[in-house]
């Protein structure tokens, strides 16, 4: 655990207590088994907003607390422990980051206070296929008088149905990472059609079709054709923050499993006395510790204003791997009970796979890391 200051310790402790009390896994089950297609529970989100969690990275002049990314990571780690469904990743982390990195004064003044207060949901619409591939964006935006017209489809957009503000990455020229532009689009703008995608983790996402959606010149976030300069660091912040949430999920999966190893008996002893299981547990602990080092280093580097491309990819890949492992071992070490819907192991494994794929899977980040390192 990073060396925390007093404010951070208080924030973490409050987040731990609140999530365990108010957003345990039973809340996720309720969301899953409910009639709505909501990706989060609105009253829970409203309370998070009141506690200031939506504005942790937002500057004070825009109504946030400016505690920084390491602090937001502490909150995310706690919500990750209990699988608390909320728009923290889409709105408080990704949406806020994009606006802070690329927004004009007017855009910041309009949107950041609403994000910080938890009044709106914002999300980044970037992916167009089953794999995260921002370098291959084809979604078209064309000049239309003074403004722009958007055509195309975005998919697996986090909290896409609930979003009031869509931050859409579009191609305005060129190829690859050249010629991309980010647009701020009202979630209810004429021509926007949203479809619920039900994913295994019970939170879901949306496919969003844009048919001749018209926006003004003031909808451009950052510079025309130079959207990558905002998009890439936004994605790296999203990756590092999501990794903090996933670290919490992995830690909880590990701790629950460890507790089971200490209590479940077979052959007349607790199964945790068997060396085969002890070594697997100790290796998992090793990976958890090194993953934690990466998460904290990435968040601290963002707060320090450093280039985080390599560290963000390192972190997402490492956390993908440990969460993958911890979720498999949670099922395996629990035996038959781990296969039942009644037990939480399945919830952790399903959440793990969805989170692994979001903002880049392990192979994506391994490849990106190698490229950044020059091979």
């Amino acid at each position, binding site marked *: *655990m*990073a*060396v925390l200051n007093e404010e951070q310790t208080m924030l973490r402790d409050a987040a731990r207590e609140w999530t365990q009390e108010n957003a345990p896994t039973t809340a996720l089950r309720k969301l899953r088994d409910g009639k709505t297609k909501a990706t989060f529970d609105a009253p829970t989100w409203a309370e998070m907003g009141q506690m200031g969690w939506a504005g942790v990275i937002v500057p004070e002049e825009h109504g946030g607390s400016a505690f920084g990314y390491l602090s937001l990571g502490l909150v995310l780690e706690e919500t990750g422990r209990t699988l608390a469904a909320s728009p923290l990743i889409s709105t408080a982390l990704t949406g806020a980051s994009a606006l802070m990195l690329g927004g004009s004064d007017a855009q910041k003044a309009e949107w950041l206070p609403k994000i910080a207060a938890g009044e709106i949901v914002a999300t980044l619409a970037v992916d167009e296929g089953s794999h995260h591939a921002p370098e291959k964006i084809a979604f078209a935006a064309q000049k239309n008088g003074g403004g722009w017209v958007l055509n195309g489809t975005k998919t697996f957009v986090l909290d896409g149905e609930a979003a009031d503000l869509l931050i859409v990455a579009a191609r305005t020229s060129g190829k690859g990472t050249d010629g991309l532009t980010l647009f701020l689009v009202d979630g209810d703008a004429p021509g926007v059609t949203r479809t619920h995608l039900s994913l295994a983790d019970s939170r879901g996402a949306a496919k969003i079709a844009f048919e001749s959606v018209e926006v003004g010149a003031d909808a451009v976030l950052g510079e025309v054709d130079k959207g990558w300069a905002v998009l890439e660091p936004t994605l790296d912040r999203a990756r590092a923050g999501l990794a903090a949430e996933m670290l919490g999920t992995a830690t909880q999966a590990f701790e629950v499993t*460890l507790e089971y*190893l*200490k209590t479940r008996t077979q052959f007349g*002893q*607790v199964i*945790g*006395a*068997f*060396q085969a299981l*002890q*070594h697997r*547990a*100790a*290796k998992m*602990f*090793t990976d958890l*510790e*090194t*993953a*934690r*080092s*990466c998460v*904290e*280093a990435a968040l601290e580097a963002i707060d320090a204003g450093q280039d985080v491309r*390599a560290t963000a990819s*390192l972190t997402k*890949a*490492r956390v993908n791997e440990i969460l993958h492992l911890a979720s498999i071992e949670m099922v395996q070490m629990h035996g038959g009970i781990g296969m039942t819907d009644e037990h939480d192991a399945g919830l952790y494994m399903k959440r793990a796979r969805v989170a692994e794929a979001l903002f880049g899977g392990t*192979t994506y980040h*391994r*490849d990106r*890391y*190698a*490229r950044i*390192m*020059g*091979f």
Partner: protein
Amino acid sequence: MADFGGTDLEAFRAETRAWLAENYPASLNTPMGEDDAPWGGRQFAWKNPDAKLWLDRMAAKGWTAPMWPKEYGGGGLSKEENKVLEQELRNIRARPALMSFGLWMLGPVLLEYATEEQKQKFIPPIIRGEIRWCQGYSEPGAGSDLAALQTKCEDKGDHFLINGQKVWTSYADQADWIFCLVRTDTTKKHEGISFVLFDMTTPGVEARPIKLISGSSPFCETFFDNVKVPKDQMVGKLNGGWEIAKRLLQYERQNISASGFGGGGGLDLVEVAKKEIGVDEQGRLDDGDLRARIAAHRMDAHAFMLTVRRAEVESKASKGPSAAVSIIKYAAAKMNQDRYELMVEAMGLQGLGWEGEGFAKDELAVTRGWLRSKGNSIEGGTSEVNLNVVAKRVLGLLDHQ
């Protein structure tokens, strides 16, 4: 404690820099090969007299042991000053003045457990590199289960009499003295062990090198046949050696891990792979599978480095070891072995040369290093024993009954 605020530290940095500029021998401005390692001791043959000069100058300032007390010849530096010294040494790529089990392992436990007389007698020669030490721990029947050791030590009134055998004694054939675990009570396991020091030239001591798969012989079998040891050379209490032994092992694991297990013959894995395999038109290594595995390994190494740094910061803040410390030896061994396996694979047959023509010196070093690295998960506590320690002490899992 003195105030080591910015100004004092900056003054210390300036003085240190000036002293190094004046005193670091120019002839040492080349990378240090394995055969240049400055082990010191009575029988050491200095290949380069400047390396000896460098040791003497550093030892005179106590900077071979910068943070040990001045009264025993140490440098008496604070943590902050030591960090500055380390930075300045790194800046000029200085070779170590002295490599020594005395500095890394024995000295710290002497400072903690020895009598004042013992400290006065043994610590200054360690700092000056005059006595080279070896470690008498493992025995043929007591490796991972170290406390099963049998080397017998009997109280003969005015002296101790030692009989038995040690194994994997690193550099025993070149060492001057040994720090040795012996059995002083056969009725108890852990509570029957004592910690003694003696001269390797004492009659009855014999060290025979063991040749390894890498072709070299850093280790010995060491035999004790009626070895007489003065009674004032026992450190700590009779039958109280296990506590000292464990503490010393902590220092050993820390040192093994901190070294990251050395380099890979000075070759860079990525550069080697690019050279031997080539790159595609986008500049990527032209073997997708190997590239992915090298990237995964590089990420392991990066994550490990961040973990070592985190453990340091956390230990400093909490004044105690961080949980991350317990996994470092295991992770470091695995990482080094992975690097050598990838290196050998990337180099193809060029990375499997044994000796002679057709192979560069650093290529031959890769072959030897690869074989040597297999010992990383055995020495200083096997990976299995380290995983046991984590399982039991950190995770609180019980013993099998």
